[in-house]
């Protein structure tokens, strides 16, 4: 297969990568660029483990072709922390024990960050519906929702 040359921006860094025409953006991130923070769960858009931001919009990277990233801006879990400093949402996931096995966590954090950037003060129903495309088989979701609520509170009035 003729590979496709893709120039894209990932977490603020310009990047060039060769992709197979049928590679997903998830394949490109993990296998082409070595960014393995984004996880593959179902590969059919049901579980949200592969959530990334594409030109500022939350998407499942398994349902985007790598070739479609040409000229686009992508933000992944690797770009959420500031160096060694965790993002508030990451810190709150730790404090609330909002993860066990951790496979779903990068997707949840990327999705929760997108929510709080769009709506800094979401109620519980809004959080649950926004995150309904992210599946977690460990926590039962309650701790995740509490972590996101706590992160929203902290972002609104930093301690």
């Amino acid at each position, binding site marked *: *297969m*003729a590979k*496709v040359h893709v120039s894209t921006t990932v977490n603020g860094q310009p990047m060039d990568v060769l992709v*197979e*025409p*049928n590679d*997903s953006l998830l394949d490109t991130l993990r296998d082409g660029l070595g960014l393995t923070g984004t996880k593959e769960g179902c*590969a*059919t*858009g049901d579980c*949200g483990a592969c*959530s990334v931001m*594409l030109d500022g*919009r*939350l*998407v*499942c990277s*398994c*349902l*985007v*072709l790598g*070739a*479609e990233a*040409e000229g686009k801006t992508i933000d992944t879990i690797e770009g959420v922390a500031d160096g060694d400093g965790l993002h508030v949402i990451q810190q709150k996931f730790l404090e609330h024990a909002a993860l066990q096995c951790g496979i779903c966590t990068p997707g949840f954090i990327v*999705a929760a960050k*997108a*929510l709080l950037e769009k709506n800094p003060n979401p109620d519980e129903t809004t959080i649950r*519906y*926004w*995150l*309904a*495309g*992210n599946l977690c088989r460990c926590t039962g979701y309650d701790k995740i929702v509490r972590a996101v609520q706590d992160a929203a509170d902290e972002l609104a009035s930093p301690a």
Partner: protein
Amino acid sequence: MGDYAYAAPATVDSTVELLSSSANSGTRTQVLAGGTDVLVQMRSTDRGARLIVDIKQLAETNVLSVGEDEIYIGAAIPSAILNENAELKGLLPGLIESADLIGSTQIQGRASIGGNLCNSSPAGDTIPALIANSAVCHIVGADGERDVPVEDFVTGVGTNCMAPHEFLLGLRVPTPKGNTGDAYLRFIPRTEMDIAVAGAGVRLTLDDSGACTAARVGIGAVAPTALVVSEAADALIGTQVDDDALNAAADACSAAASPISDKRGTVEYRIKVVGVLCKRAGAIARDRAKA
């Protein structure tokens, strides 16, 4: 068999040229919009190599305009953008809700009404709402442009009227005038993110006395394609859209349904529920028309 290939042409003409030359040379092509159906099928039911033609770079498929007589929704516009458009949501709440019902936040960021229509599933949620709104498909191909009423677009399970050299540019929806309201309801066994067991879309217009002067009813997931039910519309026109009229429309929808039994519901259940959904959607459309 050949290999996979990807192209994102910059113009409508070059897209049509590519689709035409591929059709002539026997190369399989597939048009890509949001990809939320295409990529799933590529990984599961249909892995065959093909040329993927991405139409999202075209200005024409990204047009979203609200005119006095016509609302134009480009085929590549994701549902999230429609849902963020307050003017559109005010004019066509039922159609926008039908798109908003599909999938998670992540899916909403990609999935388009045009793609939902071209996927041509019997259970596509936007199709009954498009039918209710008298939408027209704006198609372009080697023979130029043509318009097809949406109820004539889907020809069977997963098939539609477009030739291999054609693709959908966008959808034309008559701008609602006067006291007009639309609504779409579907039944699923959970609160969201599931495939419709049955669905019904209604758009109606009332005069100042509250009498219905125009109506369109579309139903989904109860036949190989979504259907326009003119008998249901006729049952509403000339009435105050009261319970008697809504019950008659519901009966007409149940009579028009020819569903299958599957894991989501039985024939008997779907026939009953599609009527109930028509009745409830009709009441919502009526109340929206009065508001």
